[in-house]
């Protein structure tokens, strides 16, 4: 008997063992691979204060957003409207002729 023929059954047995081991390990490996590609959840990113103003150029403002704050200015204008209304009433009072001709 030649040595190569004597080793052939051993080679077949080794190949079978390798295949069986691979099949047995496929589940955990696949799970590990799936975990590797899954998106990260609950990631907190800390951005330093002022970073946005230094990185975003003024021309990159989204449409409909003023480049400076204006909501408080609108509120101030409403307050002025109220006072102007009262002022108009007071000036109108000054226009009234005296109620009594006898004084």
């Amino acid at each position: 008997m030649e040595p190569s023929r004597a080793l052939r059954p051993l080679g077949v047995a080794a190949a079978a063992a390798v295949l069986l081991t691979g099949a047995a390990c496929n589940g955990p490996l696949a799970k590990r691979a799936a975990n590797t590609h899954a998106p990260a959840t609950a990631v907190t990113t800390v951005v330093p204060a002022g970073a946005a103003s230094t990185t975003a150029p003024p021309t990159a403002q989204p449409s409909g957003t003023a480049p400076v704050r204006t909501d408080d200015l609108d509120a101030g204008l409403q307050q002025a409207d109220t006072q102007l209304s009262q002022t108009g009433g007071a000036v109108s009072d000054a226009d009234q002729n005296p109620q009594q001709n006898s004084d």
Partner: protein
Amino acid sequence: MTFTTRFKAGAAAIVAAGALAVAVPAYAQTGPSPTDPPAPTRLTDLKARADQAVKDRLTQIDALTGRLNGAGADCGQNADVTGQLANDRTGLQQLDATIQAESDGKKAVAEYRQIFTDFRIYWLQTPKTHEVVGCDRERKADTTLSALKQKIQSRVDEAKAKGYDVSAAQAAVDDMGAKLTDATTRADHASSLVADLRPDKGDNSVLTSNLAALSTGRQDLHAGLTDLQGARHDARTAIDDLKSLHKG
């Protein structure tokens, strides 16, 4: 010139004069002069009429004092006018007491007239107080608009620093400032002009000048109010400009 031509010219002149008379705003007119009521002939009637006239005026003084106290601002004449009204109150009460104790008919008639000529609660003190309060109100609105102007100016500066073209907004803010300054001048003038007007005590020239001063004061207050409304419009313009800025 034919009769028809002369007639047409005359009619046109009358129409023009009428239009001018109508064009003068109500607040610029001095209005009719007061007609002091004749004293009742019977002393008892006179005393009753005097007492009621004094009570009416005391009620009016209280209302005017309340207006001053609730003005919410002061152009600088509130204390002066409040003091005048307090003196009027005391003076009217003393005069009423004198009339009620009077036994001389002639003296009673003269004292009765003083209720009107020496105090002028309705013809002088009432419009005067209203004009002083009108100034106070304009001052209050002016203060609010001035604070708003400062805020708008800071945003204009901020936008300018970021590279935006703020020329239109800045022009509106500048005009706003000019109008607020003028409003203050006009209102202060009205208040200071009328605050120290004194009762005419039967002197027609004093009465006429008082009525003219009150009319000028009303015109100043209207001009001041128009300025404030213009300043408010400027503020709206500047804010809208800030909302739609583009980089220059």
